């Protein structure tokens, strides 16, 4: 489905990613973990075509889309849904407007959008919030509204950047339940960035560990705690002593 070949990203004189090679097959659920500022969000933004690789190639369904213009990327992006770390809910629209926005931009009639918005809002537990402004929502509600918007157009690939950051444990569990149910039903490919390893491994099947802009480890989520790399073991266990620099 999506492949990064020896990708490097430099922005403002800083190297954010280097030599990243990664393949995510269709239907896979990949988790991306790592310390803060390791390059996790940059990695998913490269996958979404939002940050162009400085070096290397981005391949989607066998087509090399590296260096494509925004116009040329548009049909590719139409197949991708994304939840942003900072929610990215549009201030100028209410919740229903935000969730229905991807459909409205595809030219669907308002009477066709309304029922789908209500169905998605019910699915994420936000029924009754359709006329609220984003500023009236709590952090958890914003995340769920973001998930509803990212998935309403039934994308083939959904990228989740920190879907549970700042949420309490119960809401975190609800969000991962929702993601599991969604992807079980749709079969869509998922890439989720999260610092909440315990929650993330209940959703994904494979995990990559990003450290200083490189993929330091890649393996199954089920055996993450027993990973051979001491960096990963320390990160997962939260131990203070180890090779991981604070």
């Amino acid at each position: 489905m999506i492949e990064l070949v020896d990708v490097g990203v430099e922005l403002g004189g800083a190297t954010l990613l280097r030599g990243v090679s990664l393949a995510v097959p269709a239907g896979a659920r990949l988790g991306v973990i790592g310390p803060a500022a390791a390059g996790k969000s940059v990695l998913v933004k490269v996958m979404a075509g939002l940050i162009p690789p400085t070096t290397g190639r981005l391949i989607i369904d066998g087509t090399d889309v590296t260096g494509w213009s925004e116009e040329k990327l548009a049909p590719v992006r139409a197949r991708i849904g994304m939840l942003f770390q900072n929610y990215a809910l549009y201030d100028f629209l209410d919740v229903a407007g935000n969730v229905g926005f991807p459909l409205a931009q595809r030219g669907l009639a308002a009477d066709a959008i309304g029922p789908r918005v209500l169905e998605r809002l019910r699915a994420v537990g936000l029924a009754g919030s359709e006329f609220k402004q984003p500023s009236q929502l709590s952090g958890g509600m914003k995340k769920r509204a973001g998930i509803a918007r990212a998935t309403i157009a039934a994308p083939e690939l959904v990228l989740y950047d920190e879907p549970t950051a700042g949420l309490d444990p119960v809401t975190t569990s609800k969000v991962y339940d929702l993601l599991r149910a969604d992807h079980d039903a749709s079969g869509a490919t998922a890439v989720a960035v999260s610092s909440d390893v315990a929650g993330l491994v209940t959703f994904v099947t494979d995990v990559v560990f990003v450290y200083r802009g490189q993929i330091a480890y890649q393996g199954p989520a089920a055996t993450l705690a027993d990973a051979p790399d001491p960096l990963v073991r320390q990160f997962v266990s939260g131990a203070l002593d180890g090779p991981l620099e604070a």
Partner: protein
Amino acid sequence: MIGERTLTLLGARAMAVTREVGGIAIMTGQVLRALLPPRLDGRELVRNLHRMGNRSLPIVALTAFFAGGLMVVQSAPFVKRLGATSLAGWAAGYAVLREIGPILIGLMFSGRVGANNTAELGTMTVTEQLDGLRALAIDPIRYLIVPRVLAMLIMLTALTIIGDLVALVGAAVVAFLVLDIDWRTMYFSFADNLTPHDFFHGVWKSVAFGAAIALTSCYFGVTVKGGAVGVGRAVNAAVVAAAVSIMLLDFFITYATA
């Protein structure tokens, strides 16, 4: 050593200004390209016209009224001394239509609308809303920037025309109250001495000022870095850049058409 350091700082500052001017020029090109063919979000344009224009009208009218009056107050001693009441309207009108009106309203518009626009776009940038649009294959320039630029151009021009008229009324009211010049004298002073050229000279200036305010406020908004502090810095930079642009454009337009 001090000289070298000063030169380094000057060079760095010059590079930064060049980068910003280049960025604004690129954005201008992107906006023009997005207008060919003009595919606009009509609702976004109307929303911006309303909030940028309608809501600015009371403050612009108030400022213009007193600016027109001030021109008369300033010229009052000379008018009284020389008995040149028939020229009081011309003096106030000439200054208001060609200079004071466009500049004052442009600066007010920059402070109210331009600063607000930068803050709004800056907040949208740091909260990833622009990336959110791009992720949905929506061009932020076409969807967000073009309607704002058009709304600012249209509304600053309209506000300047309205402000000019209000300023002339203000001049007539103050002339009547302070100098005891009757309405008809002021009217004929305006009508006999002011030309359409004086009016359009100010209107063209307002178009240029509107473009400068729109492009600088949008540019600094979408290039924000560093969260809330960055938004504050961007608003400051946008207001300064707009004020400098207004004064430079005013000088060059006046010089070129003198």
